[in-house]
């Protein structure tokens, strides 16, 4: 790799750049100084930890260890979605975990086995970052999808119950809500796909270029990862909604209010 390394002292110089936003925060008396400092400290610790851990994983390059690391990432994503949606953890976590797993693993396998088609592509060095990028996008999509689904059901409960009263099956009555939630969750990814490269140089492309790859190689990786991300978000959102539905509706077809942490609105 012909990438320029950053020494700890040089990185410290990078932290000096923080003086500008912190200066603005102090000057404008924005009530976010503590929050910002905590966020920077957290970022540093998390990335240091991940850096050491990944070094270790890349060196060992053991499929089981790599798999375990991906499962941990999915578990963390799962917990952060549920807390981000302000919904009951025990009602969602199981279904969401499966949804994230499928949304990450299926596109990952296609990417590695069909697109890269190289033994080296099974190395942790490829598998971990690719799955991380797909998972990060699945996480965003699930937060939007799950939240839209349950909140709009809560808000439009009368219309939902009317469908049941009209003789709809659970699937039929939920269909408009599933459709809206999927559309809302997929829209940001479609928007990103259509503006990519014009507005910003995407992460994967930047990575390949910094790693010494030529721009044509970089865009090929970027195209493949964007499609993998899109496929992953579509898989995960539909599964997240379908797999959590079982636990959150009564056998009578009504929404089980226990899912909302605050109870009745």
């Amino acid at each position, binding site marked *: 790799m012909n990438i320029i390394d950053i020494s700890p002292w040089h990185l410290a110089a990078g932290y000096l750049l923080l003086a500008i936003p912190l200066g603005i925060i102090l000057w404008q008396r924005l009530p976010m100084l503590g929050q910002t400092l905590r966020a920077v400290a957290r970022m540093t610790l998390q990335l240091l930890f991940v850096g050491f851990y990944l070094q270790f994983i890349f060196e060992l390059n053991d499929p089981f260890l790599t798999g375990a690391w991906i499962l941990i990432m999915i578990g963390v994503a799962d917990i952060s979605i549920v807390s981000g949606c302000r919904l009951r953890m025990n009602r969602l976590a199981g279904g969401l975990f499966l949804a994230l797993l499928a949304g990450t693993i299926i596109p990952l396998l296609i990417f590695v086995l069909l697109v890269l088609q190289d033994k080296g592509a099974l190395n942790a060095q490829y598998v971990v970052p690719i799955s991380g990028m797909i998972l990060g996008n699945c996480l965003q999509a699930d937060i939007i999808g799950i939240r839209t689904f349950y909140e709009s059901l809560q808000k439009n409960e009368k219309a939902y*119950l009317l*469908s049941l*009263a009209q003789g709809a*099956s659970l699937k*039929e009555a939920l269909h408009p809500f599933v459709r809206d939630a999927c559309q809302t969750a997929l829209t940001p990814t479609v928007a990103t796909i259509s503006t990519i490269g014009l507005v910003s140089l995407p992460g994967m492309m930047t990575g390949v270029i910094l790693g010494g790859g030529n721009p044509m190689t970089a865009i090929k990786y970027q195209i493949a990862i964007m499609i993998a991300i899109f496929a992953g978000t579509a898989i995960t959102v539909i599964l997240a909604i379908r797999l959590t539905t079982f636990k959150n509706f009564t*056998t*009578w*077809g009504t929404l089980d209010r226990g899912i909302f942490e605050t109870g009745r609105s």
Partner: protein
Amino acid sequence: MIAGQNILSGFSLRLFPGQKTTLIGRSGCGKSTLLRSLLGFVVPEAGTIRVFGMELSSHLVWKLRTRMAYVAQEPEMGVGNVHDLLVRPFTFKSNRRLHENMNCVPELLERLHLPESILGKDVSALSGGEKQRIALISGLLLDREILLLDEASSALDQAAKLAVIDLLRASEALTVLSVSHDQEWIGFSDNLVDLSKSQNCAAA
């Protein structure tokens, strides 16, 4: 025999085919809850509900809902124009065979004093009285045996209310269970049930 039996803290009610029954009683005594419990939206803590002689259960309710129609107080039918909302129930598998009933829409609109142009209107642009009549039409199109009406005349003017009463009276075979405070509506029903007089008035 069509018979619905309800027990609401020492309360029981039996409906006969074609009978028009109105539930009255002060607010909060469980009138709306009673209608909703027939559809399985509220599950009684004790006692049984029988519809068409069958005990209401989470298993049977799906079948029984296809034999009843419900018009809620201040109906919310979703988003879209009136025509689409009237068609929507016929996209459900259980109602597909009834799709031809859409042919009755012009006649029903006329009988309830609504212009045919209303079909193209967005449902959010309708007045309360128009919404109630459209919801009623939607229920009637489904050709059910029992019609449940929750304050279905509350936003109607005099002429529209009489038109609704006339229409329901003409549907002899239709069993109607309604909740109302309206004197004229009460006058139209065959059977009046005062829920305030049942032993316990708390909503179940």
